[in-house]
């Protein structure tokens, strides 16, 4: 560039100014989208807290649900909490071993094409409406046997399975190939390398996947509608019997004409929300930690 045609940097052309304006606009839109996403969560938490807090008391955890919304008779969700815990535990006991094994198979042993098919299948399964899963388990286990916590556990485990398998596989694939080679170069078989090198390296990620799956199952409603009764007011611990659950108490209470039931539903919603939020936050934090740990090995 000759000195004659040199233009000073300051006071640049209109084009540059236009580009800068556009940049500002797009930045603003992106920021707005981020704010909306956070605001939605904040509004949900605030409104549930506002309506749920007044009904949050010791009775909520020590009493069973009331039958006809009469104050003084029951008025808690003890049976629902116990039911949700047991059914989620059944589901997790099924989905975690299955999901982890599936992830190990697809990331370590399956040929590339089969691994891809498994991955696509899991994605499809994750997208199946949960009410369809409920109907499926209804036809499979409930018809002829009646409602049971087992059936609900199976339905919830189908919801959990893709969550566990996909996140576990993601973590297993993060484990660098060099560690697999290191194990095998020392004379370990493939299976032995998976057991003694890959899994210990990825265990943080698997715990995370489990926690996130638990949080997911605890909040599911639709699979329960078809598999366990919505009128189970007593504390039940026998898994062959239907159990109450927090999501269905919320569902029931919100439909109830009794103001008391509605209050209890809000309180139950708050309990569920806090539980799920804590679960998924802990899960995400652990996930970050384990990812960092794996990245060190790269």
């Amino acid at each position, binding site marked *: 560039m000759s000195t004659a045609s040199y233009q000073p940097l300051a006071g640049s052309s209109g084009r540059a100014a236009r580009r800068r304006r556009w940049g500002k606009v797009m930045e603003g839109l992106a920021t707005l989208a981020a704010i909306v996403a956070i605001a939605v969560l904040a509004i949900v938490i605030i409104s549930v807290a506002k309506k749920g807090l007044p009904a949050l008391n010791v009775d909520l955890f020590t009493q069973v649900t009331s039958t006809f919304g009469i104050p003084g008779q029951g008025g808690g969700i003890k049976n629902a909490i116990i039911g949700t815990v047991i059914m989620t535990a059944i589901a997790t006991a099924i989905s975690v071993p299955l999901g982890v094994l599936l992830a190990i198979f697809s990331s370590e042993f399956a*040929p*590339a094409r089969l691994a891809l098919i498994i991955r696509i299948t899991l994605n499809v399964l994750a997208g199946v409406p949960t009410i369809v899963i409920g109907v499926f388990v209804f036809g499979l286990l409930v018809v002829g046997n009646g409602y049971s916590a087992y059936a609900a556990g199976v339905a919830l485990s189908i919801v959990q399975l893709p969550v566990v398998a996909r996140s576990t596989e993601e973590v297993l694939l993060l484990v*660098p190939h*060099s*560690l*697999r*080679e*290191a*194990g*095998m*170069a*020392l*004379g*370990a*078989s*493939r299976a*032995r390398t998976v057991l*003694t*090198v890959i899994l*210990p*390296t990825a265990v943080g990620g698997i715990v995370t996947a489990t926690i996130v799956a638990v949080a997911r199952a605890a909040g599911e409603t639709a699979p329960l509608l078809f598999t366990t009764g919505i009128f189970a007011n007593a504390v039940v611990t026998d898994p062959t019997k239907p159990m109450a659950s927090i999501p269905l108490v919320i569902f029931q209470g919100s439909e109830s004409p009794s103001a008391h039931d509605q209050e209890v539903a809000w309180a139950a919603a708050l309990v569920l929300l806090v539980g799920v939020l804590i679960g998924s936050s802990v899960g995400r934090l652990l996930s970050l930690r384990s990812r960092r*740990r*794996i990245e*060190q*090995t790269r």
Partner: protein
Amino acid sequence: MSETIRPEGTPPMTDQPDQTAAGNSPDPPPEVASARPTTQLGELAGGHDDDPTVGHPTVFELENVSVSYSGMVAIRDVDMDIHCNLVTAFIGPSGCGKTTLLRSLNRLNDLIPGAAVEGRVSYRSEDLYGADIDAVEVRRRIGMVFQRPNPFPKSIYDNVAYGLRLHGMKDDLDGRVERALRHAVLWDEVKDRLKASGLSLSGGQQQRLCIARALAIEPDVILMDEPASALDPISTQSIEDLVEQLKAEYSIIIVTHNMQQAARVADVTAFFSVDVAEDGSRSGVLVEQGPTSKLFIRPSDPRTEAYVTGRFG
């Protein structure tokens, strides 16, 4: 001749034959340094009196070896002998298949879908790819150190003990771990923190930990795939010193991009190059191999000369 540090129990070095090559050639190795029973007599490659392979039986004999990945030939028609208790270097430009060839020597290529080895790889007169050969046992006897240090995310102790536990060598585990770490000249640096993570070490220390891990299970051969290429010069020096010491007990094959490194550590050097066929397909070929001093000073192939003098690659 220089004093090399020898582990206890190895026989003293015998007198060396006169060196005829120019002054910067590496120290010729001892005539018989192996404590192991020798299975067959070494061949005299050319019969030069400075031939470092004199008195060293072969550990690998490659006949017409080609390695391909899903039909793409990475290296072809390699005929070579590799001798015991010497350092053999594979040098050559990128893509010449030297790492591929190295990985076919402990059957690590088995792990890559589509990889196929043709020809015959004999290890101490046995067909390495024979039907009754267990790849796991192959890898116990033929250890490997990789380009980038890859310690397990376990403690220093557990890194070394991993292979020992794997192969049931659990008697005197502490002693074996200590010996391996001493052997890899890492013991003094880590003896007070054996429970610390292997990943807490520096790059050079990590690589020596990986060498200790390989040594612990008492291999016969150690394959090294550019073991110092990810390290700083000082760590590189320590790895090279280590290689020099280890050859008294082990046969070492080292792939390197660094010709000075080959000149410093290798007794025998094999030069590989890329051959471009008429249809444009590329594959690696062995151009020549011989005593390192000869290869660097009097190469017999113009391609070798061009490479070692820096005119190519």
